[in-house]
């Protein structure tokens, strides 16, 4: 396209203007995915710390229910969510109906962040690995006979995933897997 001299002249002047620093030179802002979800934790460390607190609460509430023979398993909703909550409550009801009991307390050891996904939404926002020791926990049937599997390891690493509940600003356990047995 052929341009009139005036236009070409203006092009040159605008170019000079930009070269002489008249245009803004601010560094562009970092990009962010379009989402209404606001990341609840600023850093990985904060996410891990929150997950550790939530997991300790999960173990405490679970242990309380089991040590009481599985009564009122709905209490678990304070610390667990989703499908994992449903299956856990179902299991606790069976535990209660069968007259089983549990004694002793497990220990929570060191934990490590697997991932924190601040921009992916509230579901499965944090996953951690956490060390557990269950050597002092006993489980018994209605006759008082131990039903602990002989191959149960004293120490294991769990992979635990949490959902973030915006209303309560809390992490709830949405999945737990036995990642591996052995000292950790």
């Amino acid at each position, binding site marked *: *396209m052929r*341009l*009139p001299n*005036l*236009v*070409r*002249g*203006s*092009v*040159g*002047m*605008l170019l*000079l*203007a*930009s070269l002489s620093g*008249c*245009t803004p030179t*601010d560094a*562009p*802002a*970092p*990009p962010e*995915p*379009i989402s209404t979800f606001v990341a609840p934790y600023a850093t990985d460390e904060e996410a891990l710390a929150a997950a550790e607190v939530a997991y300790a609460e*999960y*173990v405490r509430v*679970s242990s309380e229910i*089991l040590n009481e023979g*599985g009564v009122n398993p709905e209490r678990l909703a304070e610390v667990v969510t989703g*499908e*994992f909550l449903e*299956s856990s409550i179902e*299991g*606790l009801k069976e535990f209660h109906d069968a007259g089983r009991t*549990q004694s002793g307390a497990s220990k929570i050891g060191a934990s490590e962040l697997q*991932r924190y*996904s601040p*921009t*992916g*939404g509230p579901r499965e926002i944090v996953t951690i690995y956490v060390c*557990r020791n269950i050597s002092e926990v006993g*489980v018994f*049937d209605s006759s008082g*006979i*131990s*039903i*602990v*599997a*002989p*191959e*149960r390891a004293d120490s294991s*690493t*769990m*992979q635990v995933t949490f959902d973030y509940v915006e209303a309560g600003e809390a992490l709830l356990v949405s*999945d*737990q*897997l*036995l*990642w*591996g047995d052995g000292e950790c």
Partner: protein
Amino acid sequence: MLVALSPVTVSFASNSNDKCSEMEYAQGLCATAGVTGDSVEIGATTEVPGSGGPGVGSGPGDNGANAVGVVNRAKSPVTLICGVGLPKGCKVVGNPPTKPVDDTGPVSISDIATFRPELPTAGMQPNQWMIVGLDTNFYANASTHIVDGTLFGGPAQVRFTPIAYSWDYGDGTSAELSAAGTTWAKQKITEFDATPTSHIYQSAGNYTITLAVTYAAEFRVADNSWQNVVGTLTIIAPPRTATAGHASTVLVDKDCNVNPTGIGC
């Protein structure tokens, strides 16, 4: 007391049973998820014919071989090896990379939240300025690329493909385009010509131009084929600021007809 182990029916745990509740954990019933290789421990149902009798459920004092037969519990971790008492081509449950494909249904964009596509950038010609009433050529620098990472505990790759380009021209207008666009030179056309991705500003001023690129994603684990990821991911490119001016109001050093080589002509 020893009980014959045959016939033994083995049923693989469903996905929900892969989860390890505190109750199952305390009883030692959870399958180990983080095991790789041909042999894994999985949750299984063991059925024993009714020989019954005293000694059933005699507890952890029994040795392991005995316990499988006599302890009456729903799930017993059993080491299974494909080809040994099981069909040779059997699929091992518990091997993390196979789980998302077979057990958990479609993978959604939130599952791959830790995989971030490369940052797209917005290009424009002329660079950072426009002439009111003439076409400014905008184009997106974004291409299909693969990001490595971890998914469901195993190594995985996600392939991002740009599928839509949303331009906010900063003048109150915007455009949703399916083409990325490119430079005038690559389109072999003259400067200020219209392109499928060009835009004309109607008034002078400073504008902030924002490009958002929407990516579709696919993932694969190990050497499996690419699987679709449900949903898309939109990433905003660094905004561009630019100035639009009227050709008629720009001053030049001298009349360009008198001095065609002067500054600005």
